[in-house]
């Protein structure tokens, strides 16, 4: 009965739920979905992570390559985030070149990275004017069920946090590059920006961590990204109905708490990995 009702009257279905003070998936208005993180999931990538936010899941793989820097910024490496929304994650998307939404998501993640200054691009420089690292962060959404930006940022940050780069010896006179793949150095990530998304319905009703259906039917959405020091890295509200400042403040408070817990999950996931590595390495 529930499913038929949802298919025939999607809007009323949601409204009826909201009137009862509950959301269709049984959450309260201000409760987030459970999160699970797995780091180093893909062996071939230089580092990787899977981030699940309820049903929404995203996987990020980072591949480091060598390149020559641009002439005007000779000591900066590059980081290239790219989000892929394939038909796999939702019937909304078609195969082919990246959709507008995927492009916007990639750009948003790029903005978050540069705003938060989580990484110093100078760390990626091997030899000034000659050789730098390029980090290709490919983020693939596996299941699209709302708040995808949170999942994408989570996956990317977890992957960046575990990134190790092989040692490179570059002879600037002969131009010979010697790679030591076994000698990997950890890469410093200065801060862990965490994003939280919100949806607003009529009469300024705030829902946190909306699912896809809720996002579609909401009047407006916004996302807040915060870093370790509770500084805001990005506030993204593309449009939709006007909302009052109080609502944004409420969102800020919620993000603070949420960011703390997500950060501890990511750190917890990384800590188990390190323990594991030591355990397996020690007998040898």
């Amino acid at each position, binding site marked *: 009965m529930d499913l038929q009702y949802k298919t025939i009257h999607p809007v009323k279905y949601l409204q009826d739920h909201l009137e009862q003070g509950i959301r269709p998936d049984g959450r309260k208005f201000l409760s987030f979905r459970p999160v699970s993180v797995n780091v180093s999931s893909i062996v071939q990538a230089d580092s990787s992570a899977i981030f699940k936010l309820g049903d929404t899941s995203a996987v990020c793989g980072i591949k480091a390559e060598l390149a020559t820097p641009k002439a005007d910024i000779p000591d900066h490496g590059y980081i290239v985030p790219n989000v892929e929304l394939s038909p796999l994650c939702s019937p909304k998307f078609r195969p082919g070149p990246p959709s*507008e939404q995927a*492009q*916007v998501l*990639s*750009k*948003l993640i*790029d*903005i978050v990275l540069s*705003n*938060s*200054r989580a990484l110093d691009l100078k760390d990626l420089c091997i030899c000034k004017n000659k050789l730098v690292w390029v980090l290709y962060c490919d983020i693939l959404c596996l299941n699209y069920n709302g708040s995808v930006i949170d999942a994408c940022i989570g996956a990317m940050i977890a992957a960046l946090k575990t990134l190790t780069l092989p040692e490179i010896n570059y002879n600037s006179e002969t131009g010979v590059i010697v790679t030591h793949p076994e000698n990997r150095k950890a890469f410093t990530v200065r801060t862990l920006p965490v994003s939280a998304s919100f949806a607003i319905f009529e009469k300024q009703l705030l829902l946190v961590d909306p699912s896809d259906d809720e996002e579609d039917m909401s009047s*407006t959405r*916004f996302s807040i990204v915060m*870093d370790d020091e*509770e*500084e*805001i*890295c*990005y*506030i*993204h*509200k*593309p*449009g*939709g*109905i*006007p*909302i*009052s*400042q109080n609502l*944004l*403040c409420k969102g*800020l408070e919620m993000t603070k708490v949420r960011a703390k817990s997500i950060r501890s999950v990511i750190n917890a996931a990384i800590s188990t990995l390190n323990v594991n590595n030591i355990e397996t390495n020690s007998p040898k």
Partner: protein
Amino acid sequence: MVEEDTEIDCVLRPMNCEINLLSRSDGSTMFMQGDTTIVAGINGPMEVKSQKMAYDKLSIEVTYTPLTGPAKVDDRLIETYIRESCESAILVSLHPNTMICINLQEVQDSGGLLACAINASCLALINSGLSMKFTIAAVSCMIEKETGKIIMDPDNTQLKNAKAEFTYAFDSINKDIVCCHSVGRFSQSEFLASVDKCKQVSQFIFDFYREITKKYANTV
């Protein structure tokens, strides 16, 4: 606190505009804030391609063309901001099964491009005569790196020592936030302070819309 302390001076760059300058668009404007210039043109409501058709509302297509180079990912973001902001302002249910095109051309960027683009699209919408729920005004501001002072409507040279830059758009009725974009890191109190200032400044942009509309509407 002394009475005088409750007021601060700030200067906005001169706003200039010409409306109806394009002969091929249904509504158009060239909007300048200081040196930052955007040309915006509106076409529609008109027939819509079937895959973009919405049975219950007007669909909005935004095309933003940068001054140099091929279309980049950055432009998609500006298009998203403008589309979603305008969608909230236009009475979209009045024209079902049709679409309008908002076409923007960057002419010159010297700071506050997004704000200028939003204002230009709103002014072009007013000029095109589409029914709107409210008008929107976008204001940009920045926080200076050393002093932590909030500077309204900064230009390129000022933006070089910015710690954070904000762009807000407000609606004309309640002055609530329609869209919000930020660059850089900042604290919560800095954020709230900047919203408050921009909200006050937005009134001057609404006044500007009113003046220009009054000027030509009297003779039309």
